[in-house]
């Protein structure tokens, strides 16, 4: 039995498409078997909502009357520096950028990181205006040297998120073996295995449901913070050549995707600026990726459960920052992580997550309704992501 994307899109058009979330499909495959499930179900939706630091936005700002060349000059939005090394009116602001005057971790450690690039992006999507300050050296064709004004999305020709690395396929579980609390991008870790943090939607996470990147690749249309966006490339640090489970899922961080989407179609419900005490800023984004059930193998992949997904437990006091000591303390399943505590070195360690399972579910449900209502069609991927045996490795 095989289906094509065209056949599935025809069903979406006629309102007969059958869509389930990556959570709902589990029971169906368990009860009816993968053969019947593949016949009856057309699309499975995945979802995730989590901090993803490698995120940011491109803007093309409408020119004032006397034109100005931002390229080679500088630009800040609400005092947060943007990158201005492009053409006359293009800038890029990254989620983790901080205003020059932010104390960071210097005098009052741990730093609070109250406002930065992620907040600028969030404010603009919420319809607020931000203060642009820009300086240029002036040319014959672009005479203007200074500009300061409030701008919103209406003052831009283009505004789109371009996130070089999102949706990590699996992630480390972070713990602290030292005798002091530490502040990391995986949260505040209490000393001597006081807590453990994980960050994945597990069985709902997009790339866990397509372990060998059969349908998620360049050109895949996605739900992206409320907009319909696209996978445009493999994400930075895409690292598919790692040990895998029998079901194909990686046992450590592996695949990633680069995403793009129009900020005008995004909603503050699906995108949030967040502050990690003592670490910095980042952006939580909602991503939902539909998986077309083209054959039985795909339906088996999307029916993977938290009990069959494993993550490595890593010490962030010594091994992560310096590479010294034990690389992996142990492996745990997402089912164990979601129970509220895991066993490490015979100790019960309470767990918490940075990936919201409640919102991952909302994303997957929302995408399901969009497809059922004929408001979201699937695309054929134009080129696959580098696969598990093609020599693409990342040194992290």
């Amino acid at each position: 039995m095989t289906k094509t994307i065209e056949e599935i899109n025809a069903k979406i058009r006629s309102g007969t498409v059958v869509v389930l979330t990556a959570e709902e499909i589990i029971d169906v495959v368990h009860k009816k078997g993968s053969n019947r499930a593949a016949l009856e179900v057309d699309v499975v939706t995945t979802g995730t909502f989590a901090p993803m630091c490698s995120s940011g936005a491109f803007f093309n700002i409408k020119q004032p009357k006397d034109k100005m060349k931002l390229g080679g000059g500088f630009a800040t939005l609400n005092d947060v520096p943007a990158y201005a090394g492009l053409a006359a009116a293009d800038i890029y602001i990254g989620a983790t950028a901080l205003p020059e005057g932010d104390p960071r971790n210097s005098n009052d450690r741990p730093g609070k990181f109250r406002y930065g690039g992620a907040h600028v992006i969030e404010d603009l999507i919420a319809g607020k205006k931000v203060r642009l300050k820009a300086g240029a050296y002036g040319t014959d064709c672009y005479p203007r040297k200074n500009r300061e004004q409030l701008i919103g999305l209406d003052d831009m020709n283009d505004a789109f998120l371009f996130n070089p690395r999102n949706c990590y396929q699996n992630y480390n579980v972070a713990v602290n073996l030292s005798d002091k609390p530490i502040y990391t991008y995986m949260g505040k870790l209490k000393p001597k295995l006081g807590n453990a943090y994980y960050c994945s939607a597990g069985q709902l996470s997009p790339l866990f449901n397509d372990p060998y990147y059969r349908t998620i690749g360049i050109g895949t249309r996605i739900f992206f913070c409320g907009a319909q966006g696209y996978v445009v490339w493999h994400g930075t640090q895409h690292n598919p050549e790692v040990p895998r489970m029998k079901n194909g899922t990686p046992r450590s961080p592996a695949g990633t995707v680069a995403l793009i989407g129009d900020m005008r179609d995004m909603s503050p419900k699906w995108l949030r600026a967040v502050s990690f005490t003592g670490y910095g800023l980042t952006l939580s984004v909602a991503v939902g990726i539909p998986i077309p059930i083209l054959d039985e193998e795909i339906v088996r992949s999307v029916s993977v459960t938290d009990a069959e997904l494993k993550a490595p437990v890593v010490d962030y006091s010594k091994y992560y920052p310096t590479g010294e000591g034990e690389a992996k303390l142990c492996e745990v399943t997402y089912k164990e992580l979601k129970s509220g505590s895991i066993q490490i070195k015979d100790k019960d360690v309470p767990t918490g997550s940075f990936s919201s399972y409640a919102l991952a579910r909302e994303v997957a449900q929302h995408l399901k309704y969009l497809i059922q209502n004929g408001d979201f069609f699937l695309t054929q991927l134009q080129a696959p992501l580098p696969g598990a045996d093609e020599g693409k490795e990342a040194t992290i």
Partner: protein
Amino acid sequence: MKRMKVVLNFPEDIVEDPITYHLITDFGVQVNILRASIDPGKQGIMVVELSGEENNVSHGLNYLEQIGVQVESLAQEIRHLEDQCASCTACLPHCPTQALEVDRQSWYVLFDPEKCILCLSCVEACIYRAISVKERLY
């Protein structure tokens, strides 16, 4: 038996009075101090759990009000902003009393102010600023 958590605000002139001593010995009220910030000559604040016979506790509260201590409920001091909360569960391992918990069916995070001891560990742990605390507790 009555048990209640309250916030006591002391005016400057009585911060040096042994108020907990009087509550315990004169009224038979058990006083469990959860959090206190008291400096001589300045306004003071103390978060306490009072427990004892219902009569004793209410006499104790009357005494506090007579000497000028303002008694407020704890719920006003800390709030879980549900609209801000993304239910990520990062706060959970930092909450010593399970006042913050997640419903493992719906996966939404819930806050029970009755269980909260105002340790404020969650404030630093929350990346969404979904815990709001009155400034004076810091």
